[in-house]
């Protein structure tokens, strides 16, 4: 699986057949349907999809943060732990410790009334059981690691005294406080300005390279994916429709949905052409077409697409595709 020549240190998290059902008006609604993911230390896995694709629910399941009433199936092996069977108490030792999270809006992670020092050290002391002075040293190290200017000075400040980009760095520092093995970043740059975005993405990549951290980035933004992720899983209506090394997948997308998503983005080489959106609206979990969920919107659909759900099949070069007609296969 390791495509870019890094040493394969084995899988840290192995998700198999993950399904998530949420209670709905007319019975349970399947939000995530038989999803497989493999997360490796030192690499970034991208989960891409539009709203309602199940990408955020997948991330929440891996954090033990699914909404009340959710029923999960399948397995998520993290070392010798089965994440889907952990109790609330067991989650408290895993979440924030081995598995950390960064959300879209850093203010959801930061308490507006507490100083940065209080927030960082509380976390460190709770999970690592160290004293106040040691925790402060650790907090300064963390802020240095996320390249916050003047870490010592920053400790006494409150979140509102920082810009959005700096707040996100502080939130990342908090996530790193207990040396997690896995960092889940849900739309980490979506709320940030474009001129700041690159800095946060570079930081995530650096943490991955330097510390051997495994990262899952969840975003709808394929531009972000192109720059930060090593492997990419494209979600549509709760399923992975295409997976592969990011560069190969974006250069030569094989699933009509991936192709459609890329075509709907502005093309810098053809500014005068109108944008080419995927027609229709995304399928919602409550209203999922039978067979391939994309088939009502797909220009390449054949009769069999409305029949069985297409399986995600290996197509070589570390790529997997859930589109049996494979209409975009290059002629070669």
């Amino acid at each position, binding site marked *: 699986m390791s495509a870019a020549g890094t040493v394969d240190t084995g899988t840290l998290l192995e998700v198999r057949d993950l399904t998530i059902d949420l209670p709905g008006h007319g019975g349970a609604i399947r939000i995530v349907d038989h999803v497989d993911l493999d997360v490796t230390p030192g690499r970034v896995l991208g989960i891409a999809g539009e709203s309602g694709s199940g990408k955020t629910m997948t991330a929440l399941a891996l954090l033990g943060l699914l909404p009340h009433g959710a029923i999960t199936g399948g397995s998520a092996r993290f070392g010798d732990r089965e994440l889907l069977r952990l109790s609330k108490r067991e989650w408290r030792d895993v979440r924030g410790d081995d598995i950390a999270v960064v959300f879209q809006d850093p203010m959801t992670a930061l308490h507006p009334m507490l100083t940065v020092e209080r927030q960082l050290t509380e976390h460190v002391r709770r999970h690592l059981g160290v004293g106040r002075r040691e925790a402060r040293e650790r907090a300064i190290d963390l802020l240095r690691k996320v390249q916050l200017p003047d870490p010592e000075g920053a400790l006494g400040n409150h979140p509102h005294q920082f810009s959005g980009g700096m707040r996100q760095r502080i939130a990342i520092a908090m996530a790193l406080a207990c040396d997690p093995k896995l960092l889940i970043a849900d739309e980490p740059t979506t709320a940030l300005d*474009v001129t700041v975005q*690159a800095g946060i993405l570079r930081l995530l990549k650096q943490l991955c390279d330097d510390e051997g951290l495994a990262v899952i980035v969840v975003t709808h933004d394929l531009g972000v994916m192109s720059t*930060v992720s090593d492997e990419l899983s494209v979600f549509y209506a709760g399923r992975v429709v295409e997976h592969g090394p990011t560069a190969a997948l974006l250069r030569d997308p094989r699933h009509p949905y991936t192709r459609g998503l890329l075509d709907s983005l502005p093309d810098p080489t053809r500014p005068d052409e109108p944008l080419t*959106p995927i027609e229709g609206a995304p399928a919602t979990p409550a209203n999922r077409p039978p067979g391939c969920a994309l088939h009502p919107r797909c220009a390449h659909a054949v009769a069999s697409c409305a029949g069985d759900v297409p399986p995600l099949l290996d197509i070589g070069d570390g790529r997997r595709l859930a589109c049996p007609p494979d209409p975009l296969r290059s002629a070669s």
Partner: protein
Amino acid sequence: MTVLELRDVVVDYPRRHLPTVRAVAGVSLTVGAGEIVGLVGESGCGKSTLGRAAVGLLAPTEGEVWFEGRRLAPLGRAARPAADRRLQMVFQDPTSSLNGRRRVGDQIRDGLALSGAEDTGDRRVGELLERVGLPARAASRFPHEFSGGQRQRVCIARALAASPSVIVADEPISALDASAQAQIANLLTDLARDLGVGLLFISHDLAIVRHVADRVAVMYLGRVAETGPTEDVWARPEHPYSRALIGAVLRADGTGELPEALPGDVPDPASPPPGCRFQTRCPEVFDRCRAEEPPLLRLGSGPSDAAEDRTAACWLHAS
């Protein structure tokens, strides 16, 4: 023909015990009939404040807004003059723009009635829905029955009900999914072309603006940094900030290239730096930038039509 004109608009937000925030510090802008003007900038640059002032939702502290040859009176307690209703706005979040408890057809009918249309019948409502790519029968449904992109179509249909000559659209696509973004961007472009509606398209996303807009104005910290025909600004950005903004656009091409981030952050609009507002982050800063604020300088080269509107507020271009 200019339909909407902003002249040296300044908008202050006074704060108790704190210095006033000058969100817009003197901006002039025109929108012609059927013309799409892109207003680009990052959060806090004042683009949304300017958009609100442009439709009269906010009273400018200084400067004037002219619409269809009359001076636009900011919205007050009294009903807005009927003629001013031809200036419409579309907001970022279609869900909060619509009443969730009323059928979308009734909400569009309100738009017709308020603009003084004679025909407020079902057929007219259906026509408007079809104009924005929804079936006429959608009129009997509620907002929650639609996807985000469809809801934004309803908002646009409601704006069209007033037969607008200008629509100010404030981040109309940024809350939508990628495929819906392209659909709504194309719809707005078509409306401007087919109906001759002027469009002020406010967005942080330069890549989309490039596809949509005829002319573009780049804002930074309450001031316009650069203006020009979109293609010209994209190909030859003359302000270092525009260059940085264009350079920061991520491309989903699989090359994995990560652009350089600009150093530092946008300064606090309550206390902008002396001289040029961009000098704290500018890679090409020199002494004059720290002392004097550059005005919008006309860049005199290029084909005559394009050169008319090509300006940059940067001392690099002082002759």
